[in-house]
């Protein structure tokens, strides 16, 4: 009966040993960190018991950045150095920033991702986000009393590759080990689905501070399958504030405003929006620096009217997502509302009317994403037993394509493909003796390159000189479970591996990140060296546990000689990890990885065999026989 035993490669050696993992909702307006404690997902609060951390960072000359409420209080006093809604800048160029003329920041004009001049020097959105994430990491470490194994960071489902990569870079900069980038609506679906034991087709309507997502999911027996997703990565509660802001200026007939007054009025606009959730009329009063006094009343009717086009803008992606999923409104069992902006009555009404049912509001729209992310982090860290887990099948939101002759786009991986996904594409040379080939990768649905988002350009070099059309260069696009793209290439007829250096259009290079990492260490209270050593030790321990667990379940796959080699590598790593030399620990880990590479492949094969053997667990006798038979076929 040994054949019936289902091996779980992901299972930890010591299930009782709870690993510290968190879920982080890095929001446009507010951010949160949550964890699973005694099998309950909880949001971790600050020292004053506040769950939300305003996503606001203020830079001062020479000092450490202020993050959260303290920074938020200073935003109309020091708007230039107080960065709000930085999420809108992630992976974006200056030309992408809406209303940038009314923003108080001094943008750098360099190409690529936008950068901001602050009192503490030029900052990339990645660094600003990292300061927010670092604050949350420290909060979590203080609350949980130890170093984190890793974190799940949520991103809008509609984030493209550049925006995802920027988020992952920010986490790295903040000293977080990223277990997974998780789509916000999917995180919400996990929290909702598990809490309510929901089964069937659900829509998650997620209107946050700066981004809008719609995801259609099928929930069935522990599998969360995203059928389609859509959205607008530059549409959110902020835009409603902006509409009120413009209305105030017009209604009060204000002269051109200073940046301080603009900030103040934007804050008043947000307050009025929130007030209207529970009241019919919101007072808008402000004394401006210019001496002018604003004293207005905003009614629900006016607000609904001035924001009508914004609400309508969310319904288009909903229609498209349903069409992509091949479903009609009547097939949707429930609509889960996520994001603070869904509190607006006109949004609730529009969603209800479109789906012909009352939206589901039984989870706190501000917290549900972080709670779901924490559940997933707990799962990914290996804290849940096999059989007590679930499976997430997510998709890429936008098609990945290549620039072809004439500026047209050839789609390589279509939108809503389940990830991980890969596609290989063959290219050839068009000139005799051509040794290099330029490739331009774009993301988007349009047919013309300039209408899509440029992700990266790279050159394939080292193609052996041949006559035109003879070379066959196979370029492989791999999208991983974080939704991030990697590219590799080789020339098929000679087997020459072409080198690929991807130059991200709106991203940071590895060197830039290394530089930022150095800078950030100089400014934080963390002892960088100690922290890096500690991280390596945690990593080493994790690897040892994983291998020991594998040996326990599948040790018989190894020959005595192989087994001895693996055990020696474990012992070596154990001995090194007690020491203080980080480099030695890394080398010992590499050795153990190398010794277990083949073992891992064998275990994977065995595990897949067992996927079928386990299924027929009821058909006892026959199973043993047929499983044996299959062993021979493999």
């Amino acid at each position, binding site marked *: 009966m040994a054949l019936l035993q289902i091996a*779980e*490669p*992901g299972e*930890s050696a010591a299930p009782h040993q709870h*690993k510290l993992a968190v879920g982080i909702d890095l929001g446009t307006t507010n951010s949160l960190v949550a964890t699973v404690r005694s099998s309950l997902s909880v949001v971790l609060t600050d020292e004053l018991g506040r769950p939300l951390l305003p996503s606001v960072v203020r830079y001062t000359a020479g000092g450490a950045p202020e993050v959260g409420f303290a920074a938020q209080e200073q935003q109309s006093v020091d708007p230039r150095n107080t960065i709000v809604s930085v999420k809108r800048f992630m992976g974006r160029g200056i030309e992408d920033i809406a209303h940038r003329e009314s923003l108080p920041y001094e943008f750098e004009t360099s190409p690529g991702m936008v950068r901001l001049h602050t009192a503490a020097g030029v900052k990339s959105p990645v660094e600003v986000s990292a300061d927010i994430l670092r604050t949350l990491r420290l909060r979590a470490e203080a609350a949980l009393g130890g170093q984190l*194994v*890793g974190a799940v960071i949520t991103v809008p489902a509609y984030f493209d590759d550049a925006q995802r990569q920027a988020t992952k870079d920010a986490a790295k900069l903040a000293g977080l080990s990223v*277990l*997974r980038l998780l789509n916000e609506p999917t995180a919400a679906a996990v929290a909702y689905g598990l809490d309510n034991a929901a089964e069937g087709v659900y829509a998650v309507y997620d209107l946050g501070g700066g981004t809008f997502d719609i995801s259609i999911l099928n929930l069935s027996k522990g*599998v969360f399958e995203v059928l389609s997703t859509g959205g607008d990565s530059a549409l959110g509660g902020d835009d409603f504030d902006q509409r009120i802001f413009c209305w105030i200026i017009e209604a009060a007939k204000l002269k051109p405003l200073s940046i301080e007054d603009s900030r103040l009025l934007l804050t008043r606009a947000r307050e009025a929006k929130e007030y209207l959730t529970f009241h019919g009329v919101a007072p808008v009063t402000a004394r401006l620096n210019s001496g002018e006094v604003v004293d207005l009343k905003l009614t629900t009717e006016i607000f609904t009217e001035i924001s009508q086009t914004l609400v309508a803008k969310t319904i*288009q992606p909903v*229609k*498209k997502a349903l*069409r992509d999923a091949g479903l009609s409104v009547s097939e949707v069992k429930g609509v889960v509302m996520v994001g603070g902006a869904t509190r607006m009555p006109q949004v609730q009404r529009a969603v209800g009317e479109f789906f012909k049912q009352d939206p589901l509001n039984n989870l706190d729209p501000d917290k549900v994403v972080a709670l779901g992310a924490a559940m*997933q982090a707990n*799962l*990914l*860290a*290996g804290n849940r037993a096999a059989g007590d887990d679930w*499976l*997430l*099948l997510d998709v890429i939101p936008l098609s990945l394509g290549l620039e072809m002759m004439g500026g047209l786009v050839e789609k390589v991986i279509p939108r809503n*493909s*389940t*990830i*991980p*996904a*890969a596609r290989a594409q063959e290219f050839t040379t068009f000139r005799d003796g051509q040794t290099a080939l330029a490739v331009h990768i774009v993301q988007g649905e349009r047919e013309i390159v300039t209408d899509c988002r440029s992700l990266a350009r790279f050159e394939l070099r080292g193609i052996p000189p041949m006559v035109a059309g003879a070379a066959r260069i196979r370029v492989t696009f*791999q999208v*991983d*479970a974080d939704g991030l793209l990697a590219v590799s290439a080789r020339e098929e007829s000679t087997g020459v591996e072409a080198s690929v250096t991807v130059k991200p259009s709106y991203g940071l290079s590895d060197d830039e990140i290394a530089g930022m990492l150095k800078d950030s260490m100089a400014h934080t209270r963390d002892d960088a060296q100690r922290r890096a050593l500690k991280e390596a030790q945690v990593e080493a321990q*994790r*690897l040892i546990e*994983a*291998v020991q667990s594998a040996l326990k379940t599948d040790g018989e796959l190894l020959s005595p000689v192989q087994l001895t080699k693996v055990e020696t590598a474990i012992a070596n790593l154990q001995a090194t990890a007690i020491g203080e030399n980080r480099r030695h620990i890394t080398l010992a880990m590499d050795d*153990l*990885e190398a010794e*277990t*590479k083949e073992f*891992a*492949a064998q*275990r*994977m*094969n065995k*595990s*897949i*065999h*067992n*996927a*079928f053997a*386990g*299924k027929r667990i009821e058909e006892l006798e026959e199973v043993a026989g047929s499983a044996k038979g*299959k062993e021979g*076929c*493999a």
Partner: protein
Amino acid sequence: MNFSDDHFALFELPHAFRLDLGALDLRYREIQAKVHPDKFAHAGDAERRLSLQWATRVNEAYQTLKKPLPRAKYLLHLAGQDVGAENNTAMPMDFLIEQMEWREAVAEARAAGNHHELEHLHHRLKHDISERFEELAALFDAPQDHVQATDRVRRLMFLDKLLFEIDDAIAAIDE
């Protein structure tokens, strides 16, 4: 079952066009539950890489078998028949004329912003396609006729593209 097995063998399903989709879904999920990167998030690099390769492979196989057109193309590919890309020169004239009429109707409705007409064309085409799939399925039953099947698949590739264009037109009007 090996990494290099064909898509049907991967899911332990018979090489057939009429496929038990329930079994396919079930087996897809069973394998993905074993190999998905989420099961290896805390494992070593080697295992994480393998998991990525396997999960990608399983997704590709599932996507190919789930929908009838890619499934038919794949079966013909296994049988050594080259379906190729849709290519006007290979198609009979009456089929091409019919295609032109369809396209004109779509273009007209699109230009007029006639949502209702596009929906109507969508349903008519859907119906036509499903009938053709029935016909195709029979060609895959014993005695199999791969030459005829290849011809039918080529036609269906045209219709599939047409359906996509209609949906695209509907989306354009919506926006």
